[in-house]
């Protein structure tokens, strides 16, 4: 073969009860990304350029858990991780805990190509991003209602399972970065491991990843 491209948008418990509209929406998003990548490959662009570009498309698509549409941490913010690797020379770049770079995959590529290092995380990654021309956004840029609802349900269920009264909070000032009121947080580590829930309603706001599935991205 002269070229080939494969993509994924996450795995896990995906309800078969979703509506045709929702299913077609996901398939259309996948096709858009695949077709865009194929066009680049047909034109002779490098595999590296293509995988970055395709992942950027998926990061900007709110259907998927990356970039816009990313899930929330227990502190009601988004922490984004990305990695990229070049098969020609085993060069690689990775970043973890990004909060303000619109397309984390491009930050991973920057690390790979512009630094002698492989992996940056957290505050150091944000400081490094300050030295780039990559687009920066407020953390709320990644917000979506569906993910917020998932977090609220997870917190509610975790509080029920842990027995920790709803009034016990970490007090994290999430409102500054999310635009949402500070969310009640439990202090129980066990609260982070919830059991699978029943199937969603089949509407877009209820698709698709259930709680345990959210472990799977």
């Amino acid at each position, binding site marked *: 073969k002269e070229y*080939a491209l494969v993509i994924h948008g996450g795995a896990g418990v995906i309800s078969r009860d979703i509506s045709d509209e929702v299913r077609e929406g996901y398939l259309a998003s996948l096709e858009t990304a695949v077709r865009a990548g194929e066009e680049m*490959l047909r034109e002779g662009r*490098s595999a590296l350029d*293509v995988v970055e570009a395709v992942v950027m498309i998926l990061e900007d698509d709110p259907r*998927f858990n990356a970039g816009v549409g990313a899930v929330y941490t227990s502190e009601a913010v988004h922490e984004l*991780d*990305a*990695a990229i690797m070049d098969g020609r020379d085993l060069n690689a770049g990775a970043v973890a805990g990004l909060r303000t770079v619109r397309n984390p995959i491009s930050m991973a590529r920057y690390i790979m190509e512009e630094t002698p290092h492989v992996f940056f995380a957290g505050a150091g990654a944000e400081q490094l991003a300050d030295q780039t021309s990559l687009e920066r956004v407020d953390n709320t840029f990644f917000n979506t209602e569906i993910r917020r609802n998932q977090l609220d349900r997870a917190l509610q269920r975790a509080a029920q399972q842990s027995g920790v009264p709803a009034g016990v909070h970490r007090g994290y000032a999430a409102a500054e970065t999310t635009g949402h009121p500070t969310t009640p947080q439990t202090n129980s580590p066990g609260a982070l491991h*919830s059991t699978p829930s029943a199937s969603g309603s089949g509407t877009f706001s209820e698709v698709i990843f259930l*709680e345990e599935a959210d472990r799977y991205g």
Partner: protein
Amino acid sequence: TVGAVALDRDGNLAAATSTGGMTNKMPGRVGDVPVIGAGTYADNRTAAISATGHGEKFIRNVVAYQIAAGIEFDGLTLQEAADRVINGKLDQGDGGIIAVDRFGTISMTFNSPGMFRGAIDSQGYFEVAIWE
């Protein structure tokens, strides 16, 4: 999590993965699985791989590299190497991988109920799918 792997006209491979992690995760927890070797790997001698799933499992099993190593050191095909790890070493429901080898062979292997995925190549193959 999202990911992409590609073989270009020059015979080069690349892999990329990006994620928001899991809902309600502890701040600072990394996984699901843009970690080099675990969920992202590319080597022109073997394959480009991007994973999605239970990140801790993929990290402990160094999944992406194990698949590449199966090709390089054990002489497995891409699909054999992917099956050995995804269906032989991981637990059912842990997730899956997409991969392409240096010949353009495509693998989309997962042991979870579903995986959003798509593939295309220069010979006219095209697929987008969610479930088996």
